[in-house]
C-alpha cells in the first residue's frame, strides 16, 4: 500500500514536470480548465469564500455593470438611514427589449443586518448570469425573456456595523436608527461593550462559590451544568458588556431596536402587537426605496429575499390572520417551485412562515404577495446539515458546533475564555463563538450554497409567465365580415395575475389588441366548442383579459369588416409582451 502510494506520487510529479515543460514550450497553452456549471475566465473575478462590506459589494456591482454593459446596469434606488445608497443591478439582455417590458424577478438580501450572506448570494446570481451568458444557451434565452433586479443589501449601514464593530451572531439585526429600548427617555445609552477588544461580543462567566456550572474537564471551552446535588464552580453573567447607564441592567439599550422585516405595508401592526414595527409601514427609507421601485416596476412577477439561518425556503402567510389571503390556486404554484427548491438545495426544507416558524405581521414576503400579487420566497440560508451531511434540525446544536470547530475549522470559530477585570462584576472570564460562525457560512461552504440558491431563484424566474400568440384563425361570416380568433398561451407555471391580484384587481388586465382591421365586435372566448363568448362593448379592438393562467391559454375573438393584413399584440404587466402579424 505504502509503496504503491509512493509510486503514484512519483508518476504524478513526473507528469507535473512534463506539463510544466510543455507550458514553457507553448505559452498559449491553458493551465486551468473549465469546470461544469461555473463561469470560465469571468471578466470579473470574485472570491466566493469571504464576505464583503457594503462598499465591497458595490464595487463588485459596478465592475459587473462595467464589464457587461449590454447585460447589466447599476443604479441607486434610494438612501439608507445613514445616507448610503441602496444599489440595484438590473440584469437582462438589453438588446432584446427594455427591462420593464419583460417579466422580472426581484432579489434582495441582508434585510436583517447580521444575516450577511444573503448579499453575497444575491451578488452571485448577478455574477453567474452575466458571466455565463456568452457560453450557455439557457442563460442566453433567459435574459432575452426576463429581467432580474438584484439588490444585494437593503441594510448597508448595519451590515457594515456587523462586520466592523463589536457584535455577536444575532446583532444588530435592525438598521442603525437608535431608539429608546428601555423606556427611560434616552436612546442607545447602554450598548454592548467589547471588553476584550476582539470585535466579537461573546459570553461572560465568573467563578462563584454558588455557581451551577463547571468547565468540561475534556474540553474547557464547554460549560456544563452540574447535577442537582453537586456544587459548581462558575456562574454565567450573560453577554459581554457593562451597565453604562447605571440602571442595573447590562447592554439594555443598544442599536435599534426595530425589525426592518416588520415594516412592510401588508397587515401591518404596531409594536405592541408585532414587536419590531416602527411608526407606520415603510418608516424605513431602505424599505421605502424598495417599495417605490416595485410600485414603478409592475413587471416584477417573482421575488426572493435572502435571510439566515436554518435551511428553509419560506412562503407566506406570515400570520395566521392571513391564511385566507393565500388561496389554493396560488399555493399550488408556490408548492411546485418550493418543492423543486428542496431538491436543488440539500438540507433546506420548504415551509410556511406562520405555522412552521413564527407569526409575523408586516413582513416583506407578505407585502410582495398580498399587496402586489408577486410570488415570493424567503430563504433562511445556512443549515447545519452542510457541516457533516447529517440532519440535526436546522440551526444545529452547540455540541455539533464544537465538533465543527475541532474537525473542520480548527479553532478558528471560537474565542477561548480569558480573564478580564470588569467594572461591575470584578474578575470575569470572556469567551464564546465568534459572530461570523453559526448563522454565517464558513468560507468553504459559501460558493456551493450560493450557487444552489441562485439556481433556485433562476428556476423561479424562469417560471414567471411567458406569453405567445398562436393559432390565429379566420372564418368568413359572409356580408364582408369575418371572424378572427387568436390564442394567447402562457408556457410557464405562473399566471399573469395571482389569484390575490384578481381578487383585488391589483394589476391592470392584460390587453390583447388587434390593429389593421376594422373591428365590429370583440369577445373573450369562454367556450369555443359551445360557442360561448363574452362581449366587450367598449373599445372592442383592445380586449381586456383578466388573467392568462400558468401553462394555460385564453382565446379572444373579433368580428371585423375589413383588414387583410393585421397584427395582434398582447401586453401584460407581469407577463411581458408578444405579437403576431399576418
Amino acid at each position, binding site marked *: 500500500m505504502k509503496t504503491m502510494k509512493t509510486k503514484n506520487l512519483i508518476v504524478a510529479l513526473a507528469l507535473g514536470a512534463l506539463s510544466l515543460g510543455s507550458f514553457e514550450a507553448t505559452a498559449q497553452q491553458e493551465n486551468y480548465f473549465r469546470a461544469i456549471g461555473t463561469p470560465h475566465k469571468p471578466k470579473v473575478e470574485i472570491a466566493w469564500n469571504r464576505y464583503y462590506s457594503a462598499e465591497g459589494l458595490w464595487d463588485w456591482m459596478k465592475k459587473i455593470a462595467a464589464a457587461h454593459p449590454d447585460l447589466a446596469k447599476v443604479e441607486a434606488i434610494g438612501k439608507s438611514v445613514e445616507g448610503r445608497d441602496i444599489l440595484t443591478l438590473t440584469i437582462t439582455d438589453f438588446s432584446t427589449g427594455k427591462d420593464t417590458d419583460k417579466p422580472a424577478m426581484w432579489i434582495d438580501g441582508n434585510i436583517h443586518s447580521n444575516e450577511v450572506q444573503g448579499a453575497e448570494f444575491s451578488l452571485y446570481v448577478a455574477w453567474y448570469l452575466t458571466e455565463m451568458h456568452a457560453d450557455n444557451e439557457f442563460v442566453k434565452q433567459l435574459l432575452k425573456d426576463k429581467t432580474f433586479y438584484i439588490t444585494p443589501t437593503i441594510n448597508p449601514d448595519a451590515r457594515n456595523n456587523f462586520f466592523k464593530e463589536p457584535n455577536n451572531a444575532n446583532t444588530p439585526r435592525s438598521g442603525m436608527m437608535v431608539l429608546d429600548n428601555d*423606556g427611560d*427617555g434616552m436612546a442607545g445609552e447602554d450598548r454592548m461593550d467589547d471588553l476584550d477588544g476582539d470585535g466579537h461580543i461573546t459570553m461572560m462567566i465568573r467563578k462563584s462559590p454558588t455557581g451551577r456550572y463547571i468547565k468540561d474537564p475534556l474540553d474547557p471551552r464547554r460549560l456544563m451544568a452540574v447535577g442537582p446535588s453537586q456544587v459548581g464552580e462558575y456562574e454565567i453573567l450573560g453577554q459581554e458588556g457593562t451597565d453604562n447607564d447605571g440602571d*442595573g441592567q447590562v447592554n439594555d439599550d443598544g442599536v435599534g431596536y426595530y425589525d426592518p422585516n416588520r415594516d412592510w405595508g401588508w397587515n401591518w401592526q404596531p409594536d405592541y402587537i408585532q414587536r419590531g414595527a416602527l411608526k407606520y409601514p415603510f418608516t424605513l427609507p431602505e424599505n421605502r426605496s424598495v417599495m417605490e421601485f416595485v410600485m414603478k416596476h409592475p413587471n416584477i412577477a417573482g421575488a426572493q429575499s435572502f435571510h439566515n439561518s436554518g435551511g428553509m425556503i419560506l412562503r407566506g402567510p406570515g400570520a395566521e390572520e392571513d391564511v385566507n389571503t393565500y388561496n389554493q390556486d396560488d399555493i399550488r404554484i408556490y408548492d411546485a417551485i418550493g418543492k423543486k427548491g428542496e431538491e436543488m438545495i440539500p438540507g433546506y426544507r420548504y415551509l410556511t412562515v406562520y405555522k412552521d416558524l413564527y407569526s409575523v405581521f408586516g413582513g416583506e414576503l407578505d407585502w410582495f404577495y398580498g399587496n402586489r400579487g408577486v410570488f415570493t420566497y424567503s430563504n433562511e440560508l445556512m443549515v447545519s446539515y452542510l457541516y457533516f451531511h447529517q440532519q440535526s434540525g436546522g440551526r444545529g446544536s452547540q455540541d455539533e458546533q464544537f465538533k465543527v470547530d475541532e474537525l473542520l475549522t480548527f479553532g478558528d470559530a471560537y474565542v477561548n475564555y480569558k480573564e478580564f477585570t470588569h467594572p461591575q462584576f470584578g474578575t470575569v472570564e470572556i469567551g464564546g463563538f465568534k459572530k461570523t460562525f453559526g448563522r454565517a457560512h464558513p468560507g468553504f461552504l459559501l460558493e456551493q450554497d450560493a450557487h444552489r440558491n441562485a439556481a433556485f431563484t433562476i428556476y423561479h424566474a424562469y417560471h414567471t409567465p411567458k406569453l405567445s400568440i398562436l393559432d390565429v384563425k379566420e372564418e368568413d361570416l359572409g356580408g364582408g365580415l369575418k371572424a378572427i380568433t387568436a390564442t394567447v398561451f402562457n408556457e410557464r407555471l405562473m399566471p399573469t395575475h395571482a389569484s390575490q391580484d384578481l381578487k383585488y*384587481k391589483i394589476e391592470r388586465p392584460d390587453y390583447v389588441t388587434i390593429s389593421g382591421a376594422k373591428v365590429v365586435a370583440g369577445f373573450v372566448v369562454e367556450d369555443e366548442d359551445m360557442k360561448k363568448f363574452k362581449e366587450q362593448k367598449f373599445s372592442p379592438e383592445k380586449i381586456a383579459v383578466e388573467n392568462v393562467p400558468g401553462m394555460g391559454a385564453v382565446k379572444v375573438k373579433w368580428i371585423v369588416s375589413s383588414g387583410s393584413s393585421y397584427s395582434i399584440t398582447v401586453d401584460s404587466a407581469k407577463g411581458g409582451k408578444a405579437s403576431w402579424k399576418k
Partner: protein
Amino acid sequence: MRKFLLTGLMLGSLLGTAVFAQSDYPTLSQITQRLQKLDGNASVELTSLTKTEGGKDVYVLKVGTESADENPAIAVVGGVEGYHVLSVELALQFAEKLVADHEEALEKTTFYIFPNMSPDAYEQYHAALKYERRGNAVAVDHDRDGKPGDNGYTDLNGDGMITWMRVEDPMGEWIPSKEDERVLVKADRAKGEAGKYSLYRESKDDDKDGKFAEDLKEGIAFNKSLTYKFPVFEPLAGDIAVSQKESRAMLDYLFEQWNIFAFVTFSPANNLSTPLKYSAGDAKKRVITSILEKDQAVNAMVSGIYNETVSQKAFQQNNQGTDGDFFQWAYFHFARLSFSTPGYWTPEFKAKTNAEANLLAWSDSLGQEVFVPWLEVKHPDFPSQKVEVGGIKPFAASNPPFDKVGEIAEEHTAFILRLAEMQPKLEFHNLKTEDLGNGLTRISVDLYNNSPLPSHSEMGEKSRWLRKIRIDMDASADKLVSGDKIKLVDSLGAFEKTSLSWIIRGGGSVTFKAGAPHAGFATQTVKL
C-alpha cells in the same frame, strides 16, 4: 378720553370678532391669515409640516409656555374629513379662544392644534363646483382599471353642486320616503314593496364600464388611510396605509411629541356622546379591536363630562369609528386617550326616523333651503329613461349654518379645557427622612398621581411610544447605600401611589425627580 378708549376697545373686540368671524366658513387663505395672526402670540409656534400634493400647507400650532415639552399635552385635530368644514373652524376657534381667554391653562398643559388635515379636499367647499370631497390631490385609480380618476362627477343640472340623480326604473331599489317624499329610501322588498328609482351620484359613465362616479377625480382620504383597520385597495384608501405626504408628516411629528396624553378630534366619529363599548373577546385577541377595559371606564367618565359641557343631545350618533380613520388610530395604534365628536349634528325633530327627512324638517323649520328639488335632465347614458337631479345640498348634513358655530366652539373649548384640568399629575407626598446614625439617612416618600386619569392608558402601558415614569435620585453612586438611582415605573392609575425609599450616606442635600413627558414631572429636594 377713558370712555372713548373703553368704547374703542369694545368696538375693536366686537369688530375683531365681526371682521374675522365672517358669515361663512373661511377659505384656505383666510385660515392661513388667522394662523399667522395667532403665531404673533408669544405662547404660539406655527409650523407648516409639509405641503400636500395640491400645494397646500399642513399646519400645526404648538401652544404652551417655555416648559411646553415638560407639560402633558392635548392634541386637537380638525379637517380629518375635507367636507367637514366645521371641524376646521372648531379647531381654529379653540386656538383663538385658548390664546385670548384661557392662557392660564398653558401653565400646566400644552396644546398641539392641527386645524386642517385635508386642505386639498377642504378647498372644494369654496370651489366653483361644490361637493363633499374626502380625497387629496393625488391621482388615484379608485376603480383599479388602469386609468386614474376617469369617472368623477358631472354637474348635470348646472347648479354648481353635486347632488344625486334618480332614474325611473322598475328594476331600481329606491322609492320616496313616507316621512318626506323628497327623500328616497330603499324599498322593503321583504314586505313585497317594488322599487321605482335607481339612484346614483350626479355623474355620467365617463369610462363606459356601467358604473357611475366610481373613479373620482380626488385622491386619498386622510381619514381612511391610517393603519388601524386600513381598508386596503378600497377607493380613497389606496394600496398602502399612511402613504400620503400629509399623513406621514403629521405622524412623524406626533411620534416626536412624547408629552401628548390625549387627542380631541373633530370628525364624524363620536365616542363622546356615548363611550365605546368594551368587548372582552376582541380585547384579548392578538390584534386588538376593542377598547381595553380600564380605558373604557376613562372613556365613560370623559363622555359624562362632555355631555355636561355640551348642550346638544345625541341623535343618531352611530359612527364610533370607520376603517383607517384617525381617531381610532390615535388610540389603537398610538395608544393615547382618543376622543372624537362631529361637534354638530341635526337635532331630533318631529320624530322623523330617516336622517334626511329629519334634516329637511329641521331646516324647513328654520327657513333654510338645503334641498335641490328634483329636476329632469337629459342623460346620455339613459336616453330612454326619465332622469332627475336633486337631493340634499353638499355640506348641509354635517355643517351647521355658520352663525351657529360660535356657540358650538364655545362649548367645545370648555370641554377641552375641562379635559386638560383632569390630566395626569404626579406629586410627592408623605416625605420622611430618618437619621439612621453614622451619617446614614433613610428617605421615604410616596409618588402620587393626583388625577382621575391614569398616567398611562391601558393601551399606553403596552406601547413603546409612551415613556415610562422615570424616577431619578441625584445622589452619587458612592453615597447611595440602597435604593435605585434610576427606577422605571410602568404606570400609576388614577389616584394611585407608589412608595419609594433610599438610604443615603453623608450630608448636604439630594434631589429626586419623577415623571414622564405625558404625565408631567415632580421634583423634591431634601436636606440630609
